[in-house]
């Protein structure tokens, strides 16, 4: 969706504020949000793409007015309610009132290290050869789905060059909505700054995105 998350090329957010490398968290509640989000996601009720969609579905005023851990908190709460794992009343009360929903798994303390060390691989075995070749020119499709996509607005319709084929990966557009993994070839596509931003752009600039095969069309 063309939601508040899609900020590439926007202006007006003010200065960037660097911070020391030693800073891990800014408040104790940030740690709790991190841990609760990872542990709740480990139940396997939703995919990472579904959770991203929950975050970008927050109202823009809230999204831009919140720190990122606050965004996590809001999205996690919405997702838990949408999945029937908790009710809004339970969230307000901070207490369980209904029986728990069954979930695929629960992450136990002893499994944390192995789970984080393993991660979740999104690569899949190719079932077809890559349609596009390295150094080939491609045009990004013009799509505006109200659902999740990882094709940012600032590259849609633009012509770039295939720089690398990464293999076949789970497609977020379907995976976010329970429509299956639809694994597709994933490419790094490089654009000149002038292609993206016009002739007045920095001539030394190039920008790439990683794009699934269905985001691309041949340049005719």
């Amino acid at each position, binding site marked *: 969706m063309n939601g508040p998350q899609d900020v590439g090329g926007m202006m007006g957010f*003010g200065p960037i504020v660097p*911070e020391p490398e030693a800073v891990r968290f800014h408040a104790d*509640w940030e740690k709790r949000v991190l841990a*609760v989000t990872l542990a709740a996601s480990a139940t396997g009720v939703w995919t990472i793409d579904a959770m991203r969609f929950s975050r970008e579905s927050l109202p823009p005023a809230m999204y831009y007015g919140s*720190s990122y851990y606050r965004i996590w908190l809001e999205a996690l709460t919405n997702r838990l309610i949408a999945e029937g794992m908790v009710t809004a009343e339970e969230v307000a009360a901070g207490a*369980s009132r209904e029986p728990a929903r069954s979930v695929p798994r629960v992450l136990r303390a002893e499994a944390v290290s192995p789970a*984080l060390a393993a991660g979740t691989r*999104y690569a899949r075995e190719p079932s077809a050869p890559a349609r596009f070749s390295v150094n080939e020119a491609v045009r990004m499709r013009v799509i505006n789905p109200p659902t999740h996509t990882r094709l940012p607005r600032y590259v849609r319709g633009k012509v770039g060059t295939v720089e690398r084929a990464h293999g076949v990966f789970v497609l977020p557009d379907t995976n976010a909505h329970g429509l299956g993994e639809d694994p597709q070839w994933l490419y790094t596509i490089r654009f000149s700054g002038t292609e993206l931003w016009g002739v*007045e752009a920095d001539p030394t600039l190039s920008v790439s995105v990683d794009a*699934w095969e269905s985001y691309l069309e041949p340049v005719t």
Partner: protein
Amino acid sequence: MMFALTKIGALTARDDVGKGLPMNNDHGHNHHGHDHHDRGSALSETELRVRALETLLVAKGYVDPAALEAIIETYETKIGPRNGARVVARAWNDPAYRDWLLRDATAAIAALGFGGRQGEHMVAVENTEAQHNLVVCTLCSCYPWPVLGLPPAWYKSPAYRSRAVIDPRGVLAEFGVSLPADRQIRVWDSTAETRYFVIPQRPPSSEGLDEAALADLVTRDSMIGAGVARQPAAAS
């Protein structure tokens, strides 16, 4: 016709862009959303909500409280940018390792003991005299956790995410980095599960340093491309 960008810069500077207005997302907080309640009060609305949610999820049996502590401990003490600094130091010191890292970053990084969540598909890119690399995730906060830890607040801020792809030199200037005018700038927008990290240029006068000393020169920001490596103490 349109006026030139240089002219525009001056205009913007003298105009009222954000003047006197609170900016959001500095230091990961904001001053006019819900979070303003977090300042000053002993137990803020946000803290109360987080506590209530955690209590609820534990009561429901969805999360194991001991697992929460294990997750926090991992990212507070084990996984951070010193991991990435070791990778860079090895690459600076060992041309074969550098080649491997550029060819298959996931495997080369795993050989040093790092990998897993948010680093399953790694790509290393190298800064040179010809090209400077900068990593961003315009759509959310994708970041190579196994080598860099959790992202800093600025990396997740709309200010950084919006500008990195259209005005990277302006962004770098805010980090105190000024590059030659002819240096190619290459921005990597992390829109998939591939995770990028930057091998900064090895500082001059770092010859003869061992890998531990080299790793000390490698800052987190330099591995995002928002900074450069430190000069060795003797040379600075």
